């Protein structure tokens, strides 16, 4: 149930974002992340934006790799 999908905000209107999931667009409520803006990559859970993701996959991977190395 705690499934969330990532997509990109392509438009915002009346407190709702239009989120593009690689070709398919769906509306998502912004009440839980009101500072989200067009162009943000976001995590969406059951019709609500719940987080803005790091713009680059690389920075996330770097942070995880750094943690991995800490335990090496």
């Amino acid at each position: 149930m705690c499934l969330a999908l990532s997509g990109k905000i392509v438009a915002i209107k009346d407190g709702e974002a239009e989120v593009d999931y690689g070709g398919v667009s769906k509306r998502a409520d912004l009440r839980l992340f009101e500072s989200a803006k067009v162009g943000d990559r976001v995590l969406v859970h059951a019709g609500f934006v719940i987080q803005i993701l790091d713009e680059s996959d690389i920075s996330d991977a770097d942070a995880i790799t750094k943690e991995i190395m800490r335990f090496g």
Partner: protein
Amino acid sequence: MVDVIHLKEMIAQVAAGSGPITIMEVCGTHTSRIFRYGIRELLPSNTKLVSGPGCPVCVTAQEDISAALTVANRDDVIFTCFGDMMRVPYGESSLYSLYESGRDIRIVTSPMDALRIAQLNPAKQVVYFGVGFETTAPLTAALIEKADALKFENLSVMSTHKTMPAAIEQLLSEGSGIAALLCPGHVAVITGSDEFGFIPERLGLPAVVAGFEAEEIMAALYAAVSMVVKGKLECVNMYPGAVASKGNKDALDLLYKVFEPGDAVWRGFGHITDSGLKIKSEYEKYDTFKRFNLPLSDLKDNVEESSLCICADILRGQSTPGDCPYFGVVCTPERPVGACMVSAEGTCSTYYRYGGVVKDAR
């Protein structure tokens, strides 16, 4: 990032020579992904994963299902819920069987769908079945806030929302044999990774907040196994792209604007103090129990649970589906006997789909 095969070797290397290491993945979405990616087969023979109580459908108590059926069976109600609640059995009955008998029960994919249904059906009382942990509860709070702002008179919420820490604490303070925990990544998106700091601090176990891709889960397992072997006690955030230490402030503010902690009954655990989310008195007109004057105590006598079903032990990580006499014989995803076979994220359902019992036996 380090790839899965490399991480497999790193885990094998760090676990080599250690005694048995049992790691619990708390989250049902993790359980499902772990099986989908074949991660159990990538771990060395001394490292085992067990599933915990993190499937909200599975831990919903029989008395809450009974209450939902009672409300959904009313002529004046349109009952709305997520799809995976439909087949949760209550004796011979379920929301699905009520739907088949003609009751107006509708699957929604967002709580806000209930608002739209209420708008289109002013002569009906629309009830939203609020199920889920900290990830989902703020969405229900947003529904109640909006219904209040728009002065909806025909919408209410049956909240069975729960929070994770008290259940984890109860489970692990009983000497469970668990060496470390994979913490639910999307719960942590809302609560923040700091929420799980009590696991090393009070329970003396390493904890790792994990993402949901194969590499992310393997990286989290590497951190967990390393901490167990080296005797380190930390709560590590291995999902940093999505999880901040303090979580999502907008969501938490809204959650506790509408809800307050309250006691809850969990399948497999029983009553746990302050592990539920109750609607605050300012919003009690949106509480289904108040709206219909339904005291929960009136419904408790009717609880029926199949006597040989071992869902309760499975949710506590004390048994696996292979221990259950019903599993795969009379209990299947098409005709579930216990709640763990219902949701796609339930342990039994996941085992059934991915041949978990056969793999365990090897």
